[in-house]
């Protein structure tokens, strides 16, 4: 116990240096935790619900630009173990600010409200299903744009040559809140008027299978069914569909990991520097300690312990700070709904803490061993 007190006393002797090093470690760990969270969030797990396992997305095997004929919907509905089918059509749009993209998804209104993890006020859901031009808006977006239920809004199309004019009839809460939903039937009407060629087609379909275990079988059955059709399909789970977009970015994980490695290296350098400065200043008293009977092992422990104390303080500040920061500041607003969810998980925190521990030991190694090895006589003889 006395030994621990000695370590803490040592750490607090040069308070400014300890504080600066702690802050430096804290800032770096904050960054490390954020980078790791970015990687985990890119996998999209936090946006999935229990029902996601039952949801499949079917689209053209060739390109999202090649739409599927609407006639596929009935065929899909007849596939064994398929409970429901909905059209799934993106309508890239914007509202008032052309630079802030906003996504509308046209679907079958009957598909809305089937996932219990997405909550919709029952009266509003009824209203949505009753009005062909109804929109159902994520709660967060409703707050962001200040819309009211019953308000008529015009969303400008940025790919399709028309605008979507609709009435906000309902709102929903749930893990993913980056898209507004409208009726596919309404979208199809708008398309027929503007580009008749493109009418009666949907970019993709969503199928809900009876159980999650049915999903893989249903997916291969569907794709086999359409192999020789005009538009061959690719069906995959909702999760894989989302993962596909991350894969399009290229090797982002490698790039971010390289940055993280650089951050780790920087932390080690900073702490090593601090510890070797401490050892240099105290070489006389370390010699005295040795004279008093402290063994080299004790000296190593003394210095590694001090490094550990600084790292622990830095870890609490940095890792805890990151958790708190992303709880307080909503990344959804900060990134204009691009990143919907940014939760520092316990696993990430534990990993960062473990890394901090390893870094503390690594960075104290050279200074500690140097201190342990220096001969008493040489140190004490050298008066300066």
């Amino acid at each position, binding site marked *: 116990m006395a030994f621990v007190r000695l370590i803490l006393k040592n750490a607090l002797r040069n308070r400014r240096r300890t504080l600066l090093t702690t802050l430096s470690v804290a800032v770096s760990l904050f960054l490390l935790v954020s980078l790791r969270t970015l990687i985990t969030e890119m996998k999209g797990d936090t946006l999935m619900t229990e029902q996601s396992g039952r949801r499949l997305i079917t689209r053209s095997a060739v390109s*999202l630009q090649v739409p599927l004929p609407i006639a596929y919907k009935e065929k899909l509905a007849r596939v064994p173990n398929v409970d429901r089918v909905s059209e799934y059509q993106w309508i890239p749009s914007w509202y008032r600010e052309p630079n802030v993209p906003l996504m509308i998804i046209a679907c079958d209104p009957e598909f809305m409200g089937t996932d219990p993890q997405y909550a919709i006020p029952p009266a509003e859901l009824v209203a949505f299903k009753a009005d062909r031009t109804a929109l159902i808006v994520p709660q967060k977006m409703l707050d962001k744009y200040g819309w009211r239920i019953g308000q008529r809004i015009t969303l400008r199309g*940025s790919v399709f040559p028309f605008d979507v004019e609709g009435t906000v009839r309902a709102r929903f809460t749930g893990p993913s809140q980056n898209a507004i939903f409208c009726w596919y039937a309404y979208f199809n009407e708008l398309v027929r008027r503007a580009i008749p060629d493109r009418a009666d087609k949907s970019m993709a379909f969503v199928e809900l299978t009876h159980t999650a275990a049915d999903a893989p079988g249903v997916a291969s059955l569907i794709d086999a069914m359409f192999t020789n059709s005009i538009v061959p399909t690719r069906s995959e789970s909702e999760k894989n569909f989302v993962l596909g977009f991350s894969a399009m970015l290229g090797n982002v994980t490698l790039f971010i990991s390289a940055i993280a490695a650089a951050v780790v290296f*920087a932390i080690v350098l900073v702490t090593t520097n601090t510890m070797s400065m401490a050892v240099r200043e105290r070489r006389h008293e370390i010699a005295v300690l040795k004279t008093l009977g402290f063994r080299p092992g004790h000296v190593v422990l003394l210095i590694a312990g001090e490094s550990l104390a600084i790292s622990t303080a830095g870890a609490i500040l940095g890792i805890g700070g990151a958790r708190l920061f992303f709880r307080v500041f909503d990344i959804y607003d900060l990134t204009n709904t691009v990143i919907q969810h940014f939760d520092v998980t316990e696993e990430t925190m534990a990993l960062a803490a473990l890394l901090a521990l390893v870094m503390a030991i690594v960075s104290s190694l050279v200074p500690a061993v140097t201190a342990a090895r220096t001969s008493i006589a040489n140190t004490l003889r050298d008066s300066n």
Partner: protein
Amino acid sequence: MFIPLKYNIRNLFVRRTATLLTAFGIAVSVAVFVAVMALVEGMDQTFVATGDARNIIALRRGAVSETGSIIDIEAPLIVRNFPGIEAISAERLVYVSTPRLQGGGSSNVVIRGLNDTGRALRPQVQLVRGRWYRPGTRELTVSRSIASRFRNCDLGDEFPTGSTRWKVVGIFDAGNTAYSSEMWTDPDGPAAAFQRRAWSDIVVRATDKAAIAPLLHLLDAEPRIDVDARTEVDYFAEQTKASTPVRVLGNVVAVVMAVGSAFAAMNTMYAAVGARTREIAVLRALGFSGRAVALSFLSEAMLLAVVGGVIGGLAALPLNGLATGTTNWFTFSEMNFAFAITPRLFMRGILFAIAMGTVGGVLPAMRASRLSAAAAMRAL
């Protein structure tokens, strides 16, 4: 009277462990900054290199990219008669989900359908192997970087899109432009294979610079077609926004790392001041002012930072020219580019290091300047 810089250089040498550790800390921040910004620079350069000042590009009003634009099949027949036009090319673009050769995953690669006139509008694009596609066939001539990075895209390969099988008959080089991420074919190709009759965009070459403004006006004002016309230069300049997420990430990471490095530099400089209390006293006794002492320590911190900055910049340098690819969210398709470390970026890295050194050096320098000669001597 200033204290000679030589004094600081020698001091940095004397305390080389601390100097190197601190400089390396700064170097790591600079290297990360330069590497991320080299990515941004590479993307931006690609866009800037692509636009031709005499070419005008007409998209559907409100469309942000060629792949997201749908233009009426008759529109080129109307535009063709406008005055001031040297050449006109109506094109069809479709992106196709294509597996990567390395690293796994797929990306959307653009097939651009264009005729001889369209090719003549892009003199940057040169055939290097094989031959150009023939009209009326399912043939593709593919850019060199797509051929080497995607499956079934090399010379002689069969590239399948659903029931259509394309034959890769040639490889072109498009230098450092956006076309180096594309596969080219005849305009009828995408029309048949993807049931896409409408055009994606119309590219017009003006007879001379003076003809551009009136042409832009004519295109915008023509009631029979609903297009948004802009020069190619403006179109591609707009797309540099595609690098914004990387730029934001790079800036956030760099600033946070810089804060950490500045704290470390501060530690080192405080230690330097502490260890040289007697020297400072001697300097003051010799008649150097407090300000001269402060300036001396500050320049020592900056010198330390410059060393770090140069090391960091050099460490990132091997990335220069490294080819990579990502998705351009405007076109929703793959874009190839190379990391570009320009002299200007290198200098920005060093300035960034100097900023860290300055932030880290100011407080210790002020402390040094406040030590009075007598008190400092007495302290020893």
